[in-house]
């Protein structure tokens, strides 16, 4: 049996060829080589408690799809696309089963939002508190969006990817991504404005 150390020095396409020849263990090289990349993508898009399961699913899907990998694109990019689509499928399933946890926002979150928007937040709170509030607010807003809008908002507005890159990752048309991006931004705007309005009403 071929050891994993034998495949460490060869490139991804060659490892894929060995897996396709029936050497299942060669896949471990790809897993070790790109495990961090997949874990990073999955942790950004999926709640931590489900991230391990989704990361495993990404590699299982990759393994099952190896026959369709033509070697024309870079393996890393192909794998990233599978990872992003698996995260998207996770959210589609979660929304279908209505398993999306909605973060409860408090007055503290609204205060934080107003401080940041008005430019008064600098050094008034501890960095970890501020990050927690930003995280909660972001999670709350994303939970109110459709899986499509959520993915596009994260990829374009958080990660700064271009429309073309997002279209390739998700396998959608650029026009669809543009429309989704516009809608997601508008929805986000509406949600945040609503929170600011609530704050003013309470005050």
């Amino acid at each position, binding site marked *: 049996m071929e050891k994993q150390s034998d495949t460490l020095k060869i490139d991804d396409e060659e490892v894929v060829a060995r897996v396709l020849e029936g050497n299942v263990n060669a896949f471990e090289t790809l897993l070790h080589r790109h495990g961090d990349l997949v874990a990073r993508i999955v942790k*950004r898009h999926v709640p931590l408690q489900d991230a391990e399961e989704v990361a495993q699913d990404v590699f299982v899907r990759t393994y099952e799809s190896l026959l369709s990998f033509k070697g024309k694109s870079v393996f890393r990019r192909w794998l990233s696309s599978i990872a992003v689509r698996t995260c998207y499928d996770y959210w589609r399933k979660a929304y279908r089963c209505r398993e999306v946890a909605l973060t409860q926002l408090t007055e503290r979150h609204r205060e934080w939002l107003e401080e940041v928007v008005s430019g008064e937040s600098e050094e008034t709170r501890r960095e970890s508190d501020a990050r927690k509030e930003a995280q909660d607010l972001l999670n709350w807003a994303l939970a109110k969006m459709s899986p499509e809008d959520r993915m596009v908002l994260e990829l374009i507005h958080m990660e700064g990817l271009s429309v073309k890159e997002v279209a390739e990752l998700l396998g959608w048309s650029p026009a669809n991504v543009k429309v989704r991006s516009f809608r997601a931004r508008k929805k986000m705007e509406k949600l945040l404005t609503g929170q600011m309005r609530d704050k003013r009403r309470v005050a």
Partner: protein
Amino acid sequence: MKPRIFQNEALRKRFREAYFSREKKSLGNHWQRRTMSRIREMGPLPVSGFWLSFESLAWRLAPVNVVLILLFLLLNATLAPDVDYLNFLATDLESSTLSEFLEMEGSG
């Protein structure tokens, strides 16, 4: 023009920091080992051959096949109710005449 909250650079920066901070949490040490055992359980991938290519092609063409079958059924279906009615009358008339004739023969 109304100021847009989500366009606020300070807020976007905070959101981006919060978003990328998700990466820093650990997935645990064993997820890769568990993944590999799932892959080993699946076994080697089937060798690409004629039937595998045929199967994938058949699935890819399935929607086209469905459309063609529906089109075929539609073209074969008689969509002329007046003709159907005339056909029915003609058949009915024939059978009743025949039965009358046979009855007459029987009685005679």
